[in-house]
């Protein structure tokens, strides 16, 4: 589904990603772990199409098509979703109106008509229940004054509504207490199916106790330095990242 080849990216002239190769197939969950500043969030942003980052080399293929030149909205239309580490507060736009606009714009891009109001309402009810969200929450301004946990829950709610093919969860576990973490993980797990894929970006292993990855990659200094199964996450949790650094140093 997603194939990244030799991806280099920089921001303000500073090189952050230095040759990433990554392939994710439908039905899989991949995790990307790594120390702070290794380029995890940059990778998420570059896949989502953030124009602040410049792709200097390499390609991103999504369902065999090169999406490197596409705008963020075009990528969303193709079924890529990014759950933000720090969701933006937008006063004056309610959660409901926002998600309605979002869904209908995606439908429009696919030549479909607006979703009928009753269908939309039903879907909103269903998906907000999945994430144990309060009705009142839906009429509040988007992310304005939301707690960290509410923001993340709202991200997963949007994901549930949009039903993306590829969901990228950028540090979704940060700012969540244990109950919220469980609700969010349950939500993510229930949305998984054979046709979609998930890329979990996280600093810690704790989210991976709930959302079990098929493949774990370690990102350091803009490169994937190690790839393994779910046990790699546990190993990192126990040993930290330093041994990997040493291993790399020895290799070079």
């Amino acid at each position, binding site marked *: 589904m997603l194939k990244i080849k030799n991806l280099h990216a920089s921001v303000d002239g500073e090189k952050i990603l230095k040759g990433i190769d990554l392939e994710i197939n439908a039905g899989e969950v991949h995790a990307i772990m790594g120390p702070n500043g290794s380029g995890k969030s940059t990778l998420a942003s570059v896949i989502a199409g953030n124009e602040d980052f410049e792709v200097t080399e390499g390609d991103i293929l999504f369902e065999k098509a090169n999406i490197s030149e596409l*705008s963020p*909205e075009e990528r969303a239309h193709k079924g890529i979703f990014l759950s933000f580490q720090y969701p933006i507060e*937008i006063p004056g736009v309610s959660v409901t109106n926002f998600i309605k606009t979002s869904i209908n714009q995606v439908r429009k891009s696919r030549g479909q008509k607006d979703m009928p109001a009753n269908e939309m309402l039903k879907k909103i009810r269903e998906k907000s229940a999945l994430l144990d969200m309060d009705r009142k929450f839906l009429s509040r301004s988007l992310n304005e004054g939301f707690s960290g946990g509410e923001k993340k829950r709202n991200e997963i709610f949007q994901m549930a509504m949009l039903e993306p093919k590829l969901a990228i969860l950028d540090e979704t576990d940060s700012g969540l207490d244990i109950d919220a973490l469980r609700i969010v993980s349950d939500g993510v797990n229930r949305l998984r199916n054979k046709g979609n894929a998930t890329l979990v970006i996280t600093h810690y292993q704790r989210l991976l106790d709930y959302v079990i990855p098929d493949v774990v990659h370690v990102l350091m200094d803009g490169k994937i330095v190690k790839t393994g199964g779910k046990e790699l996450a546990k190993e990192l949790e126990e040993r930290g990242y330093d041994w990997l650094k040493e291993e790399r140093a020895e290799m070079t």
Partner: protein
Amino acid sequence: MELKEKLMSSYLAFEEQVDMENDIHNVRNKAIKFFETTGFPTKKMEAWKYTSLNSILKEDYSIFPKKEDTIDYKDIKKYLIHDIDTYTIVFIDGIYSSHLSRTTHDKLDACLMSSALNKSKYKSIMDKYFNKIVPEESMSSLNTAFAKEGAYIRIPKNVSAEKPIQILNFSTGNESALMVQPRNLIIAEDGAHVQIIERHQSLTDNPVLTNSVTEVYVGKNAEVDYYKIQNDKTTSSLIDNTFIKQERDSTCSLHTFSLGGKITRNNLRFYQHGENCNSILKGVTILEGKQHVDHNTLVHHIEPNCESHQDYKGIFSEKSVGVFNGSILVDRLAQKTNAFQSNNNILLDDGATCNSKPQLEIFADDVKCSHGCTIGQLNNEALYYLRTRGIPKKEARALLMFAFANNVLDSVKIPEIKNRITKQIALKLEVELGFNL
């Protein structure tokens, strides 16, 4: 001939059209003398520092248009709030159009200033209200001097006007350039309720200069809800002078939607003459090209325990200019005043300008007053966030701008107005309205 000289000589001709024996005429004479001494405002005056009238004063305006009323309902329908039942008072080139209007004398008066000024049965009302709260200023004095026609609205004690009243001023372009000076008087007696919608609209690109004065009297416990829709051609300019006197326990809210016009100046003054008054001043301004809007507001807190809320939002693109000069004056007696003011602006292009100047003069020591103004740009992070949800750039920008203006639109009590303004804004932003805020 300079416009000022032309107006001075026109005044002599004007005197032949009106009843010079009437007391009103003394008021006019005094006003023209004041205008003669002061002339038009210039940028040297503090209150006009950011707005120059030079570009519009050089036109050769007709002061007395020909009485040629060739307008049909279909020509003006789109400028009306026509999907709800309203009283309408329509003026074409400053002249009342009976066939386009729906006036009334039943329960309330929604009719003509010319009748009110001339008929003896209105004399006591005119003595009490006409030109009583209009300050001696150049533009309002000029209007007073030529005061002859406009809307006269009186809602008697404890009457609630069951439908809104629209005051519509159209210019036809029959004159190559036209100057009109509507004079409105609105009286909501004690306990009365009324909603007013006012619009000035040119039907062609011929230059128009409107210098209007509206006096609004809000009686005890009365409520006036006023909407000004300013979405005129870029060849038309408007100097709107609106003066509002509130008595105790009254509420007056006034929304100004400035979406088009060459130069628009809103001189808006609220005077609170009783306790527990609430004054609400709100505005949304969205301009492009070289359009210029200047909001000059004053809330004068004279009595204790009153409130005022000013909230103006502006979005400026290309080379447009916005000015906000908002004053709050709290007298020594006006203890426990709550006065708030906020002016937020977004500049979309490098060539756009915004001047925001809050002015607070507080002579009482137990009050809550605040003001805040911001001038900024659209939040790029928010834009990116919306785009990752599949909302295209243009629509995402529009959504953010709507969100920005939302709390002003939210307080509009007539849904049809809210819909229209929302549609107008969408049209300006060139988006299809896929969302309802």
